[in-house]
């Protein structure tokens, strides 16, 4: 019965299996063929759709491209130099960091709170669980229209509410600072459904015996949350943080539909700049350089997460 809770063999077991077959991969020829047969198709697919485009992007980023998109003049690292020297690009970089950091922190905090609230055994709690995870079923375009109605300066819900309470009316999407707030709020809202569902699942897996033991010791609910709940769900929290971080760097739909990078480039995030340069102005060389920088930044931050945050993760 114990095994059913652990779908994967424990590390010690895996090691003992390896010991029984010390030659493993180098051993029988037959094994190699089998391995190749299993890995081959996915390697081919990855090669065509991931590695080749990546190398091609790197190649394009070293060129100027003509008006049909062909690389014509080799400029070395000049595209990168231009970008790093451009104050507009640095502003875009800064805006991206602010956006990503806020989205990750808010998504996780609100997600944990909602999940913690939803594990309580109360009457009608299933309704709330459905509502909290509902944004998973909402498409980006629908969400954008929904939020545009809320933020609209003339007919918007927020500004009508503000007017009736005699509060100052804010031009949400046309004032640089508020536009950033608006897209952060809508992105967090979009993310919540998925985050809630994952964290809710993790919370339900925490054995109740731990809470019983803590209660016997006289631990307060706050102490229980910080020292029992959080460590127990930390692998899931880490997973969600990584996924949300990468997702936030790649946010596109809401920005395109709500602000199109404006006002005054305040919400012109790095990935949106790539889209603008490649598909609006046909500047593929520059756009490729921007993609490479973005890929390096995402990879770097993910590495930092694994290096420093994963240490704090407790695996059972």
């Amino acid at each position, binding site marked *: 019965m114990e095994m059913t809770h652990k779908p994967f063999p424990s590390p010690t077991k895996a090691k003992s299996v390896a010991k029984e077959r010390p030659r493993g991969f180098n051993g029988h020829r037959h094994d190699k063929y089998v391995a190749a047969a299993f890995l081959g198709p996915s390697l081919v697919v990855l090669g065509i759709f991931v590695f080749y485009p990546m190398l091609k992007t790197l190649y394009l980023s070293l060129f100027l491209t003509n*008006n*049909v998109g062909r690389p*014509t003049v080799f400029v070395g690292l000049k595209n990168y130099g231009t970008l790093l020297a451009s104050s507009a690009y640095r502003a875009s970089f800064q805006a991206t960091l602010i956006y990503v950091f806020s989205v990750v922190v808010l998504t996780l905090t609100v997600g944990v709170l909602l999940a913690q609230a939803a594990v309580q055994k109360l009457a009608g709690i299933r309704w709330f669980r459905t509502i909290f995870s509902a944004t998973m079923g909402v498409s980006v375009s629908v969400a954008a229209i929904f939020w545009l109605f809320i933020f609209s300066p003339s007919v918007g819900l927020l500004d009508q509410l503000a007017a009736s309470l005699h509060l100052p009316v804010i031009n949400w999407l046309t004032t640089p600072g508020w536009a950033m707030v608006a897209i952060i709020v809508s992105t967090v809202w979009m993310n919540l459904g998925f985050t809630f569902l994952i964290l809710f699942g993790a919370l339900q897996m925490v054995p109740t015996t731990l809470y019983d033991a803590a209660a016997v010791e006289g631990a307060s609910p706050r102490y229980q949350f910080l020292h029992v709940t959080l460590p127990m769900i930390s692998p899931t929290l880490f997973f969600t943080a990584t996924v949300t971080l990468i997702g936030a760097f790649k946010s596109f739909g809401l920005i395109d539909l709500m602000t199109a990078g404006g006002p005054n480039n305040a919400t012109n995030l790095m990935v949106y700049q790539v889209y603008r340069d490649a598909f*609006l102005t*046909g500047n593929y*060389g520059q756009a490729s350089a921007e993609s490479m920088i973005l890929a390096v930044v995402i990879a770097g931050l993910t590495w930092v997460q694994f290096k420093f945050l994963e240490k704090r993760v407790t695996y059972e």
Partner: protein
Amino acid sequence: MKRIRKLWGWLALLVVGVTLIGTGWATHQAAVARAVPHRTKILFWHEMTGPAQQELLRLVQGFNRSQTTYQVVPEFEGNYNEAVQKVIDTHGTTASPAVFQSMDISTSQLAHTGNITPVQKYIDEDHYDLKQIAPGARAFYANRGVQLSMPFNTSQPVLYYNATLLKKYHITPPPVAPTYQDITRVATQLTDRSHHKVQGMTVEIYGWLFEQFLANSGEELANQHDGHTGTPTEVNFTSPGALTAMHWIQTNLQRGIFVNYGAGANAQSNETASFLSGRLGMFLQSSALIGQLTTGNPDRLGISDYPHPVGKRANGVAIGGASLWLSNDKSAHVQRGAWDFIKYLMTAKSQAAWQVATGYLALNQRSAQTPALRALFRKLPATRVPGNQLRATAPNQTNSGIFLQGLIQERNLTQTAMEQIYQGADPRRALSTAQRAMTSYVQNNNRANGYQK
């Protein structure tokens, strides 16, 4: 056992159902294929939405019924910006269109791709009377005497004002060809006399409108006479015409007679909504909005020409909109059919119907005599103004558009500068930054295409 038999029953039903649906679909497809016997397919890409799309599809139907050789197949391709890239990326494949609509500012780029057949070829072959098409519109899509594409949906930037509100507050309307000062006067009076219930005026943060301030001042935006005599190598956003216009806007913002609605599609719908509800007195915008501003508007709509600086004659503004292009990757027979379709769209009758349904201008000079357009002018006399403005403009090098690649980038950059100016930045500084970025873009682009070392 019973359960298994039941399962078999369901399975059989499923097979029968799928077969029936499949046969039905195949029959339908065959019928569709038979419906166009021996006609040559002409693929037509367009970017029209709403009422303009409906009218365009009606015109396509009209062409298909008018002859039996060709079948024009219209396909909607999303927005203008994305369509240009799609046209370039699909060229030479079977997916590419024979005839396509592309926006005003893609003209130089498309001409330089070498992917198109200039319509001039067929104009010469057919001895087509080009004079019947409005000269101001034609000039925009011509380069050194060669007509590259056929102007189609065409608009002019104009000044809209609420004539009913002006009358209510006893304000003399702006003249037909107003100066910046004339507009400031009306905006001030409107704001003061309505005790700030009516906002005086606005100008959307929009690169197209920025270009028009220069055109109407008779100043170049790019060297080589806006690209009409050679490939431009630098741009000028800080000419007196540009600075005067930006100072005018900034001063009026500070005086509180000008409201900033921002940039983009939301800005346009917000300023239109405010104007229709009588909270905004005047704004500069495309004449293509006329239809929207006259239907369901309880107030009388006033229209004037685009404003010009004090002490200068209005040089005339460039058109906006899109034109029709022929791809050169299709057989001569297909290209001929595509040209016939263009000719059909440009007849006096088609153009009149087009203006009545959409607000875009009828470009055929004989359209004015058609019953449809005469009825429109009788009903709404103000709708004559944009057409008159277009006819009054003698095309020259500064009011016939800018023959430069990368105008999308130019609009992004000037729009960013405008946003900064509207928020109080020094116009010369904001525009200089944009100018440097654009000149560097132009020079890189020239190098990449081999026009410049």
